């Protein structure tokens, strides 16, 4: 049977505000357990929450960036359940009047955009963390009360790859907004997935499974791929799908059932009477909208237009906010007329250095000025493109300037015709056969002779000039 996969994602994002969502505690991930806490985030009796305006602003910015409608009236609700990492045994969240609804973002496959709906984005508080060691369980409440936003997608994703692309784009947009670390390994971005299969062509949704415990985007994709296989096999066998929550075991590469729908909790949501309903007025929304930075898609279009970049090149440059900033600065101060040359450096040697070091371009230890200085040596014919790549790598490792390294390693190309002529004469004497070949019309022989000159000069000869000198010398005589 052919099935269509239907996926919806729930992303939780920790906001990097200075203080927690409902108290004044500083957010600092480096601190010892239970040192970023106060009676309020510990849920001590008699204490009351007061919402953090910065968190609300960040959440609104995210909602705007995902084209959501900000709700004029919103409120906080309590989600009640018992768990030792939840100090009040309820989480302050939003239920029936979320901050925003009806947004979307685009993913791209083969350069074709596909619109993925976003059902809602709301604000809530994080729980603490349980640490299990030596047969006992300890609770660290540093994380309790950190503002979270939950971004719920529509079931518009039809393959694990689309889910992966959605997450990548979502992360890139959030990074541009500078409101979260977006680090899945550190837990500042968490993702749960709902997946079901239906007969191809059917409009009715199948029975879904909720997947949890994925620690990377790749983990999400792998877990979904596993689930596609598992569910398809089950359906083919005529088995009964049950609505359940399954945990991804990354080591074994399988999902394992955690609980079925019958075991689903009743969270007994109701409006939090400690936090009054509030009103988000249009002025506030417009003020925040004006503060939104240029987002990846807008930047991509602008790069393509302004710098005549291909979509492919532009996409690489805008994939991270910092790289886009670094690249644009390079392109701007690059003195040459053909900006494409600068772009080729960025997406060529620089990107491969970054990839091999597993960092971003902007995180390489090199300034725009130094990079352009290096390119200048190549363009003036003073060093070869090949040695420039070596110099770039050394610059990144040592932090030394291009000039220093070029002089140190004696890499300046020989363009002095007198010096080159001497080498050419000796090469002609040593390679009479090739000389004859050339003269008898085998033009390829010239390349061989140029290579010999380069070799003799330990690669420092300027190959362009050598070629000119050689051909003139051999045709003249």
């Amino acid at each position, binding site marked *: 049977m052919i099935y269509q996969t239907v996926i919806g994602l729930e992303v939780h994002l920790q906001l990097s505000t200075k203080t927690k969502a409902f108290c004044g505690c500083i957010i600092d991930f480096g601190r010892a357990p239970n040192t970023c806490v106060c*009676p309020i985030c*510990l*849920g*001590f*009796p*008699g*204490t*009351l*929450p*007061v*919402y953090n305006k910065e968190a609300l602003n960040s959440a609104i910015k995210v909602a705007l960036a995902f084209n959501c409608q900000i709700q004029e009236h919103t409120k906080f609700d*309590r989600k*009640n359940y*018992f768990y*030792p990492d939840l*100090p*009040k*045994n*309820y989480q302050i969240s939003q239920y029936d009047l979320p901050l925003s609804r009806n947004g979307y973002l685009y993913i791209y496959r083969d350069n074709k955009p596909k619109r993925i709906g976003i059902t809602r984005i709301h604000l809530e508080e994080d729980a603490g963390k349980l640490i299990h060691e030596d047969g006992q*369980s300890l*609770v660290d409440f540093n994380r309790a009360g950190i503002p979270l936003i939950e971004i719920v997608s529509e079931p518009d994703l039809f393959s694990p790859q689309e889910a992966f692309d959605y997450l990548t784009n979502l992360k890139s947009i959030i990074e541009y907004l500078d409101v979260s670390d977006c680090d899945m390994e550190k837990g500042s971005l968490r993702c749960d997935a709902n997946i079901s299969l239906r007969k191809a062509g059917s409009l009715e949704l199948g029975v879904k499974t909720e997947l949890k415990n994925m620690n990377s985007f790749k983990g999400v994709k792998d877990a979904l791929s596993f689930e596609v296989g598992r569910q398809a096999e089950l359906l083919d066998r005529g088995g009964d799908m049950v609505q359940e929550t399954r945990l991804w075991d990354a080591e074994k590469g399988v999902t394992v059932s955690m609980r079925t729908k019958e075991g689903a909790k*009743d969270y*007994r*949501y*109701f409006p939090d*009477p*400690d*936090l*009054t309903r509030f009103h988000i007025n249009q002025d506030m929304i417009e003020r925040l909208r004006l503060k939104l930075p240029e987002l990846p898609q807008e930047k991509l279009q602008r790069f393509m237009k302004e710098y005549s970049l291909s979509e492919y090149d532009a996409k690489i440059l805008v994939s991270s906010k910092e790289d886009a900033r670094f690249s644009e600065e390079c392109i701007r101060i690059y003195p040459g007329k053909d900006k494409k040359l600068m772009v080729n450096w960025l997406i060529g040697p620089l990107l491969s250095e970054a990839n091999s070091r597993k960092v971003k371009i902007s995180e390489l230890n090199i300034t725009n000025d130094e990079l352009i200085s290096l390119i200048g040596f190549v363009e003036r014919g003073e060093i070869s493109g090949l040695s420039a790549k070596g110099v770039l790598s050394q610059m990144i490792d040592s932090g030394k300037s291009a000039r220093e390294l070029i002089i140190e390693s004696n890499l300046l190309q020989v363009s002095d015709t007198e010096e080159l002529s001497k080498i050419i004469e000796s090469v002609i004497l040593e390679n009479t056969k090739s000389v004859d070949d050339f003269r008898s019309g085998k033009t390829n022989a010239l390349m061989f002779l140029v290579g010999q000159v380069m070799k003799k000069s330990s690669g420092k000869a300027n190959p362009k000039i050598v070629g000119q000198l050689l051909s003139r010398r051999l045709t003249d005589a």
Partner: protein
Amino acid sequence: MELNQLTAHELLVRLKSGSVASEAVQEALYARIEKVDSKINAYVRRADFRKNDAVNKKQGLLFSLPVTVKDNICTEGLNTECCSKILAGFCPPYEATVISKLKKAGAEIFPLKANMDEFAFGSSTENSCFGPTHNPWNLGCVPGGSSGGSAAAVAADEAIWALGSDTGGSIRQPASFCGVVGLKPTYGRVSRFGLIAFASSLDQIGPITKDVEDAAILTQAISGYDPNDSTSVDQDVPDYLKSLTKDIKGLRVGIPKEYFVEGMDSEVKSVIEQAVNKLKTLGASVKEVSLPHTEYAVPVYYIIATAEASSNLARFDGVQYGYRAKSDNLIEMYKRTRAEGFGDEAKRRIILGTFALSHGYYDAYYLRALKVRTLIKQDFDRVFAEFDCIAAPTSPTPAFKLGERASEPLKMYLSDIYTISVNLAGIPAISIPCGFTKDKLPVGLQIMAGSFNEEMLFRVAHTFEQNTEWHKIKSSL
């Protein structure tokens, strides 16, 4: 007269002039407590009790005058246990905003806390893990509740004045049963920060005093916006002493016909009728009004209040503070801690509230209750559009016998029938002594006004009081 028998304003004059030292006031209170509290049990005696260091600060408005505080208001360094075993040993590392305000005004926090129904659940102060409080007018009777300790202490001259909390009548009903003055301020007038929540949307802290002037002074000291309580209202606090005029000529007083129905004690009825006549002779124009949704107040209240309570009390789980039952597994620990730590009434309300919020019942109970709450509020809005205040009984009966209603929760819940609507509507109301039954049990007259119109309550109550002698009559204890 002993110092402990004086009102706060009488003592303030003496403290100010230096004719009385504040230590002497405290000593007089301790002597009185020594003499009568074994019979009354207005105070909670804890092992860690020690008297305050000698104080005579002569500063602020309140000149080190001691204030007695109910056991559900957080006092830094003084155990605050809500008279519940589950909070045994809980000593908050912070204090309620009202406590900070009182200290700032120069008051002394009396180091013995007042007895109460566990978590303020009750109308008789019989639900305390420290045993019931007895009514100073008749030791076989209850003092009302839940602030029964505060009211009995003031009535028995074991306190100069006291703070209570009122969720459905918990200040006014015990004030009425004990023949003292009790005020529930407008919701949002007084900060709830540090008040261990029963029902967050209904709770307010207020004064229990020997006369109306003291109530005005104490209300003045604790009122005002608190940035730590989102539900407190940012509105200027008027000078309440200025509203202590002795003139109510021409004031329009409404008498709600729904409050004079079957089930009302005939003696209470005639006492209230005489009090209303007194208002007439003082120049008020009295007319019958209707609050048509009154009959729904009790059911609506017991849905909303228990729903909020079920969530507010979830935090008492043995994980961080208070009582923890020994167990080697988490779920057992939760269950046993709560089974052993909460009293019967707390359990009853948690179960009721949990049910009301449950999936499938929420719309029928909680949501509908919220809608009826709005109707009740609108009843008052309509009346206050034409009337300055409403006069009514505080309770349908005088103090009842200890144990009489303990096994009949429904009958007990009906003791709040005249006080609950005020909390649901968020408006202020005061109970003042207005006479006695043949058995020498006090009866309270309740006056209600529109939101933030405490001045009207003080004006009417003070005028009535200055023209009657009821508040001066002391129990023969």
